[in-house]
């Protein structure tokens, strides 16, 4: 088969190369073969321009195939084709000019051209002229995206021309928006641009701000010419212009002589050692900066230690100079930006609040099981985190058997509940009920279970993270505008947290089990004498708390990762959520989660470059908070508070 194939290849090759009738497209490609073969964003422009401007009917096809990595090179003769995969190793080549199949080739005889994404963006920009009025709406959108990414002055005219014939209202709106942005950037007459700027002064989209900001690109110039579009005067030492940088600007302008750095002075000293002395000072005494300064001053009388850069740059004219020459345009842009920025700040606050709510709901979900076992029953369960982990792994295992993600999640949620419910009941029966009078030892025994469970998970699933994939309808994000957005998966977690809050309230306040649980918690003996079986109630309550942890595990696994250490990441935070909120009260847990979530996001906002610091300070805050409210935000009063 293989021999036959190569024979076939050879035959088709012969048939093709002998007439040597390569079409005009192939000729053009061959002309730029070297550039195309080693496509780099820096050099490829001539080749793309040549293709785009060639006027050949196949130009659009070539560019599109090239962009999609479908253009191949036949190694033997260096000709370009587009190819279609037939089997894993065989590709069918097509000629660009005739669109006719050329033959099937082994992959080894071919080379795929893989333009990098920089080159692909440039091809996209070149394709714009072909695609703006393409009948396929997807292509038209692709063209708009290409403009958005890599706008050129040449796009302005075709874009304006294409709007009239646009049938799709959504695309038309987007075209108009883009036209405004292009007008701002590339139009030639100032009033049009200013008008365009004023028309978008309420738009907070990223593109608008990008367009306006790029108009305001500026640099700091020493003593700029009068013709320059200057902005504010800058004093050296302000943020944005250090004394060093200001001095360097003056040196570059030729009005200041460079000052030697201490290292340079030291080098000069060591070059001028004569007879164990430099500038009359013995070497051994040069171990202090003043002594060295004296020695240097002795060598260079022009220099004195008092000459500093700060004195040189003081009171010198440094101005902000805009790259955009027109002052009307920059003024309009600045005014527009100012009004936009207020809106952006408001929206950012909203986005931060959404993030805070989302984090709070995650903490709440992780802690709600604990609010039952620890808050209601007073049992410290250090293995709570491992129940969360078990839930997440249940989700992973279900996905191995049920390929449909939606169905698998629907199966996984109740299954995770059952699995962890069973584990919780088993643990309560075997261990915890023997330790109800010894809370500290419950802590240690459940910790033993926790390390055992974690290691068992490692032995079964390995230490590597396992994929738990959300169904497609949870992909993506709810996007209000370019500033405010939140992923659907987080919204789902928020909804789940709300559901569980309701479920918890319903069970505790409206069901027999809830009543019995409350009774047993407050006074087991009295409850027993009223005919309640405390053993059974404890078992069920503990199972319920563990089961909810399992469901939380599925949710957490969906948005983060599934590893054996998943649980231990949440255990300390969960306990703190419950303790901060106030033990024994679900509203307290909610308040605790909200406080921790918002606090952490708030600290992150204040110090965006160090997330670790946010976590550290949050914990320190909690420690201090508990000192002042040892019973949490919502403290139980009276006898129910116990000790």
């Amino acid at each position, binding site marked *: 088969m293989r021999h036959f194939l190569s024979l076939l290849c050879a035959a088709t090759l012969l048939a093709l190369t002998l007439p040597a009738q390569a079409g005009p497209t192939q000729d053009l490609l061959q002309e730029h073969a070297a550039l195309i073969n080693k496509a780099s964003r820096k050099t490829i422009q001539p080749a793309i321009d040549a293709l785009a401007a060639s006027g050949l009917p196949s130009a659009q096809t070539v560019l599109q195939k090239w962009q999609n990595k479908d253009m191949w090179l036949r190694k033997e003769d260096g000709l370009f084709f587009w190819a279609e995969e037939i089997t894993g190793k065989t590709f069918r080549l097509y000629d660009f000019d005739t669109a006719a199949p050329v033959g099937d080739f082994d992959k080894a005889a071919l080379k795929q051209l893989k333009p990098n994404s920089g080159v692909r963006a440039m091809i996209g920009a070149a394709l714009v002229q072909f695609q703006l009025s393409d009948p396929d709406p997807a292509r038209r959108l692709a063209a708009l995206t290409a403009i958005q990414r890599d706008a050129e002055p040449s796009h302005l005219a075709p874009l304006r021309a294409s709007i009239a014939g646009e049938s799709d209202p959504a695309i038309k709106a987007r075209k108009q928006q883009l036209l405004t942005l292009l007008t701002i950037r590339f139009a030639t007459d100032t009033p049009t641009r200013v008008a365009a700027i004023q028309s978008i002064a309420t738009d907070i989209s990223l593109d608008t701000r990008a367009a306006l900001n790029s108009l305001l690109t500026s640099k700091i110039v020493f003593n700029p010419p009068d013709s320059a579009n200057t902005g504010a005067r800058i004093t050296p030492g302000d943020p944005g212009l250090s004394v060093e940088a200001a001095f360097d600007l003056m040196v570059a302008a030729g009005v200041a002589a460079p000052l030697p750095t201490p290292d340079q002075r*030291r080098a000069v*000293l*060591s070059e001028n*050692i004569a007879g164990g002395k*430099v500038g009359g000072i013995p*070497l*051994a005494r*040069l*171990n*202090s*900066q003043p002594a*060295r300064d004296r020695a240097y001053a002795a060598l260079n009388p022009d220099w004195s230690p008092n000459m500093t850069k700060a004195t040189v740059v003081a009171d010198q004219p440094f101005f902000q100079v805009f790259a955009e020459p027109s002052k009307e345009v920059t003024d309009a842009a600045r005014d527009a930006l100012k009004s936009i920025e207020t809106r952006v700040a408001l929206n950012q606050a909203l986005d931060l609040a959404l993030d805070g709510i989302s984090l709070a709901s995650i903490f709440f979900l992780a802690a709600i099981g604990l609010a039952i076992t620890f808050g209601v029953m007073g049992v*410290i369960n250090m293995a709570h985190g491992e129940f969360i982990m078990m839930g997440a792994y249940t989700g992973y295992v279900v996905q191995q058997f049920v390929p449909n993600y939606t169905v698998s999640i629907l199966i996984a949620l109740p299954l995770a509940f059952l699995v962890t419910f069973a584990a919780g009941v088993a643990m309560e029966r075997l*261990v915890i009920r*023997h*330790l109800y*009078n*010894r*809370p*500290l*030892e419950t*802590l*240690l*025994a459940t*910790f*033993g*279970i*926790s*390390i*055992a*469970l*974690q*290691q*068992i998970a*490692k*032995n079964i699933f390995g230490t590597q993270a396992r994929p738990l994939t959300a169904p497609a309808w949870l992909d993506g994000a709810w996007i209000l505008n370019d500033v405010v957005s939140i992923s659907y998966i987080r919204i789902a977690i928020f909804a789940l947290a709300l559901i569980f809050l309701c479920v918890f309230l319903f069970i505790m306040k409206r069901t027999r089990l809830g009543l019995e649980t409350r009774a047993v918690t407050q006074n087991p003996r009295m409850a027993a004498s009223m005919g309640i079986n405390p053993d059974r109630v404890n078992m069920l309550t503990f199972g319920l708390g563990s089961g909810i942890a399992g469901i939380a595990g599925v949710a957490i696994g969906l948005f983060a990762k599934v590893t054996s250490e998943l649980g*231990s990441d949440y255990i*300390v935070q969960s*306990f*703190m959520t419950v*303790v901060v909120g106030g033990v024994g009260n679900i509203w307290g847990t909610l308040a605790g989660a909200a406080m921790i979530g918002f606090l952490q996001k708030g600290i992150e906002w204040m110090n965006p470059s*160090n997330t*670790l*610091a946010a*976590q*550290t300070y949050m*914990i*320190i805050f*909690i*420690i*201090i908070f*508990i*000192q*002042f409210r*040892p019973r949490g935000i919502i403290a139980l009063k009276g006898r129910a508070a116990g*000790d």
Partner: protein
Amino acid sequence: MTRSLFARNPSVLVFLACLGLFTLGVTALSEALGTGMISTSFVKTLGKTLSLSLIALAMDLVWGYTGILSLGHFAFFGLGGYMIGMWLMYERTRDIVVTSMANADIPPTPQEITDAIGNQIFGVVGGSDFPLIWAFSHSLALQLILVVAVPGLLALVFGWLAFRSRVTGVYLSILTQAMTLALALYLFQNDSGLRGNNGLSGLQNLPGLDDVPQSVVSLWFFWASALALGLGYLFAAWVVSGKFGSVLRGIRDDEARVRFLGYSVEGYKLFIFTVTAVISGIAGALYYPQAGIINPAEIAPIASIYLAVWVAIGGRGRLYGAVIGAAFVSLVSTWFTGGQVPSIPLGFYTIDWVDWWQVVLGLSFVLVTLFAPKGIGGLFDYFTGRKPPNRHGKDLGPGSGSLKEQEAEA
């Protein structure tokens, strides 16, 4: 006083004799001074075990005797290590820098030396300036004071806040755990100035003693650890033997009653919490030069929980129990995780101890808590013939039905 101390605690003499014999034995078998039967790395290992036993002793004081389950004592251990590590690191680097700069034609200024040291130490984490907390790192004496002062002060402040607000029981445990977590997270940051995740390394090389082989250095630290453990044991025995000890156990068994009797419960707790923090700091300062490197992972919350595990398995409320627990569990753990224990083939599955040891440890911990609350130390009761009254499995602790002082006395 001493007479009565030994009279009340005959185990002290036995323990000290055992420790002395053990130290002599190891010395005699070491590479540096003896037959070489015990390799240098094993001497280091034994020295580290003695340091761990010391912090276990502190844990027993605070948990077994006072009933405060602190899940944060490794924070103090780590701080002690960091404090001594700063000096070791600074001084070693200074030696290198000064030697290297002596070659230059112009003698260096003090500022240049400091800059060069900073660059060497912090270059690895992308910095070169000395943070403020390194202010005393040039002086061994000051850093040694800090070894006890920093953990002691942290414990004092933390304990004062916590005990003042009457945070007790599991709340206090979680709070101490939060403290060690916060400290670990803080130290993980590069901005904390202690080289972040990299920590302080190369601590086994003593500055100025490059010519002394590690076999000798390891023995020095071994002796120091043994001495510290011996002194720590004496001190602990003294603390728990008198009236003071009785109050401590009273607090453990029923805090409210002790308070109603007019004792300042908070004062006692604060004292014991701070003193054990200081002991932990000393243990850490002895441990990390033997380990060679300290980094924030060492003080993660799990470490302190393991400390509680050691003490519980060894036997709470008796000092030798803590020492035995720390030594036994950490030794056995290493043996199992070292990959030297033969696997058990079951036909369908092979039990590889590297993988399953943690499971065994975790479960055995549950079993000890449930069925043998006295831990290994309880075995000694069989030899001494001491039998507890049958209290239906209830044990030491503040809960109802717990053993009270007379029944549990070590």
